[in-house]
């Protein structure tokens, strides 16, 4: 039983950290530029496809990640400069629509370039086996690496945001954009850089999750919704909020899927349990989000006063 709990906590941690990589970029863009970017999930997809292509060509997983990060960041910045910049001053409705259009376009372009079938991205052979963490507790080596990379990225982001000048600008921009501009922060450059960084984090998540899930058209949309839930719970614009929100969502989702059906089986008649358990498990995080918004309409760690 204990090994099961440890294993599920690790699974939740892995999901949470990957969500954080997506949510961090989203929350910065959202917080600093006041811009809803539904196409953030498309950058995740593009990152995964680039990784799969480079991995296939070079045979090196590390090269694949590096290429995906660089390529996606470039694409992200190009997108920011051309399409998104004119949208900053438009209403949220227009932002939602334009970026929804970008999703449609990205999906079709990927389908044209790579085909409708999922593309293979295999984990490095050295990591494809299990690691014995404790007697009787074997955990996939690759998932441990994913957790490690996720933690490292979170730490790096924390250091950058909390202890560097760029981070100071970012925080200033998120809490009061005009004031930051007036104080001499070059916001135009900052926006592009922040967008590129967000895209790069997407690519890391896409490349790492590719071997565990599937590199396919539409992969970005479901995870995007989860990332939105994360930043709304955490408070838009707050990187710390995104981390807390991501871990909450990751752990709650995994725990809910394992424990709730078991709990209902123990408490309720089987007919009821088999219906209600899974239903409740899959909406748990949305209930959490609605609850948080009801009591803290601006999330747990609001970036703005």
């Amino acid at each position: 039983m204990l090994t099961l709990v440890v294993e599920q906590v690790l699974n939740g941690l892995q999901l949470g950290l990957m969500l954080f990589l997506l949510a961090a970029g989203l929350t910065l863009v959202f917080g600093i530029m006041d811009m809803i970017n539904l196409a953030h999930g498309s950058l995740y997809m593009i990152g995964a496809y680039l990784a799969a292509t480079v991995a296939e060509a070079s045979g090196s997983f590390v090269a694949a990640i590096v290429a995906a990060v660089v390529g996606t960041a470039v694409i992200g910045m190009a997108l920011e400069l051309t399409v998104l910049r004119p949208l900053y001053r438009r209403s949220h409705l227009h932002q939602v629509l334009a970026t929804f259009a970008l999703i449609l376009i990205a999906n079709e372009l990927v389908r044209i370039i790579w085909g409708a079938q999922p593309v293979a991205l295999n984990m490095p052979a050295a990591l494809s086996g299990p690691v014995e963490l404790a007697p009787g507790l074997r955990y996939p080596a690759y998932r441990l690496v994913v957790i490690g990379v996720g933690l490292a990225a979170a730490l790096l982001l924390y250091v950058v945001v909390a202890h560097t000048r760029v981070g100071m600008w970012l925080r200033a921009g998120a809490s009061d954009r005009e004031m930051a501009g007036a104080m001499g922060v070059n916001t135009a450059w900052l926006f592009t850089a922040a967008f590129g960084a967000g895209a790069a984090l997407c690519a890391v998540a896409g490349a790492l999750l590719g071997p565990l899930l599937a590199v396919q058209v539409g992969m970005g949309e479901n995870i995007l919704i989860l990332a939105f839930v994360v930043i709304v719970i955490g408070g838009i614009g707050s990187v710390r909020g995104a981390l807390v929100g991501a871990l909450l969502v990751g752990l709650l989702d995994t725990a809910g899927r394992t424990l709730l059906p078991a709990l209902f089986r123990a408490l309720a008649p089987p007919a009821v349990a088999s219906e209600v358990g899974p239903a409740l498990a899959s909406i748990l995080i949305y209930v959490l989000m609605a609850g948080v918004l009801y009591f803290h309409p601006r999330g747990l760690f609001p970036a703005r006063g």
Partner: protein
Amino acid sequence: MASALHIRLHPLPTLLLVAGLAVLPVVLTAVDQPFYIVLASRVLIYALIASSLNLLIGYGGMVSLGHACFIGAGAYTAAVMVRAGADIAWLTWPAAALAGAALAAMIGVVALRTRGVYFIMITLAFAQMAYYVVVSLRVLGGDDGLTLPHRARYGFGLDPGSDTVFYWAVLVVVLLLMTGMRQLLNAPLGRALQAIRDNDTRMEAIGFPVFRIQLAGFVIAGAAAGLGGGMLADLNQQVSPSLLHWTQSGTLMVMVILGGAGRFLGGVLGAAALLLAQELFSDVTTHTALGIGLVLLAVVLFAPAGLAGLWRQVAR
């Protein structure tokens, strides 16, 4: 008195349009193209649903990214009723509208406490909840959805299996509702809704019950979308969770903006344009979505008033 807000309908073009729509299935049957009767019915139903979202977005300033859940509420209600034998359209359709209204009331009470981005997100979250509840509940068929053994009956000796009869029934309902929407927008409630869209703080300050007016608008839109869902269930003789998927909400938003948010016929134009374009291009290319995406992006960037707006610009 004709205020700027008053929605006028010119009698002659309106009459011609209605007459044209009414004889359409006769013509299509005469040339032996029954497929297009089904397509026309789908366009009419989506015109209604998109108009209900237009009421929220265009007239009420409530940008909901969860409209699909009301379609789902209506569609599943109608499907369950038909399967249970309560298969009279004049029962299932109002019930579908009621289901949409009830769900909208529940969601609206919570969601309308938030503003701006948070409103978009919380409507999305509620719609996702509805989606996952439907997917998980076996009584609603889970992933498989439900199949209707036949369409709901209409009485009056009308054949429920006939696509033409179904089309006419839908046409009558949609025309009635569009007339109702015009009345609503010309009435004090509709005016207040538009005023709140433009400045909710001021409306609050001069004593309007902003929350209740918005909730009323939200519930009315939910009811219309639910009714549309009930008719969709009959049209397809099946309901599935994909009706509630969030991309469905996005597509409806696309229809509204494409047609022209805050224009009376915006939803109708948008639904017709999008569905007909999909049908037209589906034979030529499998990449229809690319074209739709590009057009949508261009509309948002360069013609935010949509097709209805372009129409006016050209007319001028």
